[in-house]
């Protein structure tokens, strides 16, 4: 059973556009929701994370929106740039559980 589901599977966005990646989770005990970014040939790196006590967190062009009742959270990339082209993983964890990752989504930002 996949506990963290990402959508869409891939995304193509024009430069300057908004990229939106969605994630849904099953386990209501999860209380930490990070996004990891991975460039080709590299390991994933933490991009931004949120706790359920807030509905939104913004860091530069990256924003996480969190909907606890729907058990969903999303990553918004404003003014998308070709350098944002990467694979993005959502993940979730609880106090007594290790991080569970989604399958990942490949984002391509066209010049």
């Amino acid at each position, binding site marked *: 059973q996949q506990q963290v589901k990402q959508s869409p599977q891939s995304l193509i966005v024009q430069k300057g556009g908004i990229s939106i990646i969605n994630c849904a989770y099953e386990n209501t005990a999860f209380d*930490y929701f990070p996004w990891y970014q991975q460039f080709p040939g590299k390991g994933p790196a933490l991009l931004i994370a949120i706790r359920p006590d807030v509905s939104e967190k913004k860091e530069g062009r990256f924003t996480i929106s969190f909907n606890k009742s729907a058990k969903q959270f999303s990553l918004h990339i404003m003014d998308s740039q070709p350098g944002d082209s990467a694979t993005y993983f959502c993940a979730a964890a609880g*106090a007594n559980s290790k991080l569970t*990752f989604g399958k990942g989504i490949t984002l391509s930002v066209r010049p």
Partner: protein
Amino acid sequence: DAGITQSPRHKVTETGTPVTLRCHQTENHRYMYWYRQDPGHGLRLIHYSYGVKDTDKGEVSDGYSVSRSKTEDFLLTLESATSSQTSVYFCAISEFTDINSPLHFGNGTRLTVT
């Protein structure tokens, strides 16, 4: 980049042979992890360690063993490699185990089992 070195970076091996992948860290972090990354599956935890000689299984541990004799080194062994173990393997470290301690990943080892 966090001080994590994985070796080798690439390896091709034959079915049935044992293979050992190494992860070396210079951060003195207590927690170390091995993940595999496969298309359509994302990142899945194989084994992790919470200290020297203290290890535990992850969600996909069958066919794998680990050892940690020093804080800085975490070894992953495929006891008898199979084609289903063809994957990219990532080592990760964290300072603490709680959710406020992010994972730092190495750059991976691409393993092909023929």
